[in-house]
């Protein structure tokens, strides 16, 4: 074997989540009212465009979740310590071509002056090791080279889009009437951006390099997985507890209701950031005092990411729990539930067959509505120092390191700008999608 696959806990949960999502789609296709609601999402142009963008992000995140350890050269079967992902392998050029320090997007020379030892001496901007290296000494040709690569990239993007267009034809035939045009236009825009970026990235640092010379484009692509994980796993972790307790409180009433209400009111009254801060501090103590728990640093970072999701989940399940309790209280008194009870159907069966399916839309709306808030929260928490492991690449850590660079003269703006654009695209798509889903599933909305 050339490599050894590694399944981090977060990968497993991410795959589980995707499987659950696929299962959910299959289930929704069989249930009439859910199918109608999802169809309404598909008919919305905003919904399809946002979904396409989100799927592109998920694809990157998925590639970045296929982890492995490379086999070291030699007779003995030994594997490298670093855990890489399929995305790392795809972008190995970007990952390995590190410069000494900052360089601007598409630059050929370093951002900072250095004393050169070549004859003539003096201080000048040194030539980058990789950025535009293929140009040799012919720097006048850079403009033409950029143009050629951009045009090539546009061509590649166009071809890729055509291929996707053809490939998606059966899908479009299978579900006519959906807003496929919006999805295709979004896809075209994505291809036309990604093509030139990919073409240029072969010879340049498209988004520049950071303080230690890492390619910013690589960092932003790696950040996507962290953002997605925080946005989805948090909800996944809190979901069972929120649904179970919410239904129980609403259905059982009495002292159980009082206890559950007391628990979530108490948790809710602790300011979120402070509870997270306290919990993360304690988690840090735990991880630091037990270094033997984790085999690799990737595993430690992964554990910390998962713990952060769990902590965020604990602080955010209360809202959903309260909503579900209220809805269950209402459903419990409806005739069909009363009838089921009169016929002697067991409580468990009433809950699972008659109540749970009728609160699923609330759960669905909560999942999509929470996502964007969680992605934003990750950046803030990482900035405050209670977010992901400092070695985990995330939007928060990127912003955190880029922040100090604004004070430099001239300014180092590219890492911040890159984080801004990617984060904005992800959160905006999530917000738009959430709006469409809410409108489609909200029974109060006019039909």
């Amino acid at each position: 074997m050339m490599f050894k696959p590694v399944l981090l806990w977060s990968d497993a949960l991410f795959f589980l989540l995707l499987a659950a999502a696929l299962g959910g789609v299959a289930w929704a296709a069989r249930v009439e009212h859910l199918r109608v609601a999802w169809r309404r999402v598909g008919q919305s142009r905003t919904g399809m465009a946002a979904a396409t963008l989100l799927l592109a992000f998920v694809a990157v995140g998925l590639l970045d979740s296929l982890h492995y350890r490379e086999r070291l050269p030699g007779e003995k079967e030994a594997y490298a310590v670093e855990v890489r992902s399929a995305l790392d392998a795809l972008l190995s050029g970007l990952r390995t071509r590190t410069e000494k320090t900052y360089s601007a997007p598409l630059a050929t020379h370093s951002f900072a002056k250095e004393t050169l030892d070549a004859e003539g001496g003096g201080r000048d901007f040194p030539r980058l090791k990789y950025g535009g290296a293929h140009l040799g000494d012919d720097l006048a040709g850079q403009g033409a080279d950029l143009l050629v690569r951009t045009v090539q990239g546009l061509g590649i993007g166009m071809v890729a889009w055509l291929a996707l267009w053809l490939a998606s034809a059966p899908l479009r035939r299978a579900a006519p009437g959906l807003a496929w045009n919006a999805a295709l236009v979004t896809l075209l825009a994505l291809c036309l951006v990604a093509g030139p970026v990919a073409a240029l990235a072969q010879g340049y640092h498209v988004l520049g390099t950071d303080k230690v010379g890492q390619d910013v484009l690589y960092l932003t692509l790696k950040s996507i997985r962290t953002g997605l994980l925080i946005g989805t796993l948090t909800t996944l972790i809190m979901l069972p507890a929120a649904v179970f307790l919410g239904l129980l409180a609403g259905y059982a009433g009495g002292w159980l209701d009082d206890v559950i209400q007391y628990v979530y009111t108490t948790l809710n009254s602790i300011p979120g950031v402070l509870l997270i801060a306290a919990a993360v501090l304690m988690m840090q103590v735990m991880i630091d005092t037990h270094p033997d728990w984790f085999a690799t640093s990737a595993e430690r970072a992964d554990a910390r990411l998962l713990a952060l999701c769990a902590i965020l989940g604990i602080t955010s399940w209360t809202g959903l729990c309260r909503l579900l309790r209220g809805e269950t209280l209402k459903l419990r008194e409806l005739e069909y539930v009363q009838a089921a009870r009169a016929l002697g159907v067991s409580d468990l069966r009433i809950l699972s067959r008659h109540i749970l399916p009728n609160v699923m839309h609330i759960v669905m709306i909560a999942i999509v509505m929470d996502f964007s808030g969680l992605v934003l929260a990750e950046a803030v928490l990482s900035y405050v120092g209670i977010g992901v492991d400092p070695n985990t690449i995330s939007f928060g850590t990127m912003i955190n390191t880029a922040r100090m660079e604004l004070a430099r003269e001239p300014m180092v703006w590219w890492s911040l700008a890159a984080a801004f654009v990617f984060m904005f695209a992800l959160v905006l798509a999530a917000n738009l999608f959430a709006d469409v889903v809410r409108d489609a599933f909200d029974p109060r909305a006019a039909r």
Partner: protein
Amino acid sequence: MLAYLIRRLFYALPILIGVNVITFALFFVVNTPDDMARMQLGVKHVTPEAIVKWKAERGYDRPLFWNDAAPGAGRLTQTIFFTKSVKMFALDFGRADDGRDIAREIGLRMGPSLAVAVPVFALGLFAAISFALLLVYFRATYLDFAGVVLCVAMMSISGLFYIIGGQWLVSKVWHLVPISGYAEGLTAAKFIILPVIVSVLAGIGSSARWYRTIFLEETTRDYVRTARAKGLSERLVLFRHVLRNALIPILTGAVVVIPTLFMGSLLIEAFFGIPGLGSYTIDAINAQDFAVVRAMVFIGSALYIVGLLLTDISYTLVDPRIRLQ
């Protein structure tokens, strides 16, 4: 009314006790004081003596719940639970790691926090309501659509970027106000104005959109149709009838945050160097000063509970149909 208030206060007590127990469990049961000492003193090279000294300095060297060594009532009071958690109800928070009294420090830092948080609250509410009203006035036009798109776009930008962008543009490029800092008295204005504007901008997207839906829901009511039927102009309907009724959910919804204004904002205060409670908390988190974080959790929860109480009272004040009993 008074009886209701007293009963509500008694209802708040178990919640506060719950918060206290949760924080206690989080800080002393999940990790032992020994773990915390080892972490703070550096994991590798710690002598047992250093740990004992660290614990003694902070009063963590007692048993958790029951002290057999102490005489009489001391068995209960000479414990970590009593000295660290129960005493919080008497607003005795002990000392921070730098030796200062936490309660005194909180008193000193409340002022700067309020100086930023109160204008942010008032201006933010005013700006969001005005913007939402504008969108509702032009509802179902391109202006409304563009406004909603703007709101969603503004919601999708991380608060960090508002702060960084504001500091860069206003302080660095235009040189209008200092980048960060704080001063007492009237000179504080020049330090406060940028954080206030930035926070209002950062919050306006989501709240204006939320208020817009409240206004729109209100415009479908019967009394609005009546007002239109008797020939009132659209502007009069909107400002005299819809605005007043829609303000009920908006204002009562906003009441809950009023007490928590004391806590200040973590991010804003950290970025703009305002010596309030927010930056105090951040510093404590970074220095891993557990005593301060614990105190802030307790105060924050207490203030939130006060906010819930105020919300209930405000309902009766604005809507005479609701009676508290």
